[in-house]
């Protein structure tokens, strides 16, 4: 009975086949997207070399913006390219009738969309960027170092921190939000959202998913904002009546226990809420794969 749900040998064969299909469907696009930084750097460098006689590739902020832009495009666009065919009668039927369990197909789909694609993209992108920065002296800090090790990324610089010594406990917890590791679940969540959209919508999958996310966000805001306004009104009034320049961290903790608790557990709250949303998305994707008909 167990082999009907999960068989390692069958799963491995299926995963290899699914991986090959991923390379065939999205390999070139992924390669183009992950080498976009290098390509633009080369183009700009060559342009600069021919026009000014000096090499000047992509400058820091542009490199960062390009990286975040291409990352978003990969995370948003890849699920529809990879598994959008499931809603197509011809290809979707072939997927459903392949003698592999639905669970195995689902696990493979999740691994490829949420792990393999982002990992390959980031590895190639960062790898090439590090290489460029090693060769090109005008490059400055590599994106990898900038994101993971640079103090420049720390919005709370030493000067501010010095002036707010009393609030250091809170600042330390705000800093947690700048830890890149905290965004792994967001990357998975984004991939899952667009995978779900790819499995639900028959056409304009990415656009419709974006539209739904916007509508859901608006709906959540409509519900949450009045609740926060009502429940937090007294706190806001109290805060308004205080001389904020004299407000100490201890006073804040005593007067606003809930808000100070939130401030001191931002990383945990973020991770738990993301995990909750991701679990919901995983369930919906599973439900969709299980119930799909043609």
């Amino acid at each position, binding site marked *: 009975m167990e082999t009907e749900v999960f068989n390692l040998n*069958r799963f491995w064969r299926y995963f290899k*086949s699914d991986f090959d299909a991923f390379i*065939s469907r999205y390999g070139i696009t992924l390669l183009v997207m992950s080498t976009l930084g290098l390509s633009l750097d080369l183009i700009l460098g060559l342009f600069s070399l021919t026009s000014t006689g000096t090499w000047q590739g992509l400058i820091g902020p542009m490199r960062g913006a390009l990286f975040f832009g291409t990352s978003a495009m990969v995370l948003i666009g890849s699920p529809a390219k990879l598994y959008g065919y499931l809603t197509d009668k*011809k290809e979707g*039927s072939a997927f*459903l009738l*392949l*003698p*592999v369990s639905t669970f195995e197909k689902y696990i493979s789909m999740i691994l490829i969309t949420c792990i393999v694609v982002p990992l390959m993209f980031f590895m190639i992108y960062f790898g090439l960027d590090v290489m460029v920065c090693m060769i090109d002296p005008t490059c400055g800090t590599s994106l990898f170092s900038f994101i993971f090790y640079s103090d420049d990324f720390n919005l709370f610089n030493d000067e501010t921190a010095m002036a707010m010594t009393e609030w250091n406990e809170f600042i330390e917890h705000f800093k947690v939000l700048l830890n890149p590791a905290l965004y792994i679940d967001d990357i998975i969540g984004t991939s899952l959202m667009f995978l779900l959209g790819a499995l639900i919508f028959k056409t304009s999958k990415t656009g419709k998913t974006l539209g739904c996310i916007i509508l859901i966000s608006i709906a959540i805001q409509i519900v949450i904002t009045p609740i926060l306004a009502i429940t937090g009104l007294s706190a806001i009034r109290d805060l308004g009546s205080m001389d904020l320049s004299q407000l100490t961290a201890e006073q804040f903790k005593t007067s606003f226990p809930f808000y100070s608790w939130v401030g001191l557990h931002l990383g945990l709250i973020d991770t738990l809420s993301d995990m909750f949303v991701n679990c919901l998305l995983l369930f919906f994707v599973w439900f969709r794969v299980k119930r799909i*008909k043609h």
Partner: protein
Amino acid sequence: MIKIKDLAFSYGDLEVLKEISMKLEEGRIYGLLGENGVGKTTLLTLLAGLKKTNYGSIDIDGFNPYERKPSFLSEIYYLSDEVPAIKMTAIAFASDRGQFWTNFDLKKFREIMNLFENDVEMRMDRMSYGQLKKTYISFALACNTKYLFMDEPTNGLDIPSKAQFRKAVLKFTSEHSTLLISTHQVRDLEALIDPIIILDHRDVLLNASLSEITEKLYFDYSTTVDPDALYSELIPGGCIQVLKNDTGMESKVNIEALFNTVHKHKELIKDMFNNKKA
């Protein structure tokens, strides 16, 4: 064995199948006939597990198709009327997908492709519709499944390919395999299908073997029309007519004439053949 009991299916408010019951035995090549929209494709997709029944049940060797268990899926192959053009060569496709069917035989795939004069090294997205269809037919037969459901398999095939298809089906299917072939091109499959199932909106009008049919109906090819004929049609050089076989004489079934007779005398035919229910 396939057991269908009180099967009902509808697309929203549009009822397609209602109280369909029948049994399909092993080792037979069933021809599934019916007018457009009676639910032939729907029935095949329900048997393959692509759809869920609204009411009633389908039992294939103890499996509920919709559960799509791997051990069930490796015993069936559903060849749809519309097949996808994959971006890979036929042989790469067969090697990649075939590994999941327990009894898949790549050598057999090559052999059938060769019979169809199809190039195994050709990319499927560059094939003509007929070539693509022949690739999928070859793959379906090479899977060596116990149950093979085919929806309009001869659509898009040229005249020589239709003969090759009949030859391939007869040569490459096991005597234990059950084939269910839905078709409008009855002449393409006349020498192949036996028994014949004629589906009507909400009913199975006929589910009988050729010998049972000729036992009860007589297909007469003559120049004069018999007034007692259940159905008659002019053909070049005379007419074909279908009569009740009261004398026990043997005749060759003309499937088109049979189909028209069944549709003209639905209740009579059902009574005559005691429409086998599961």
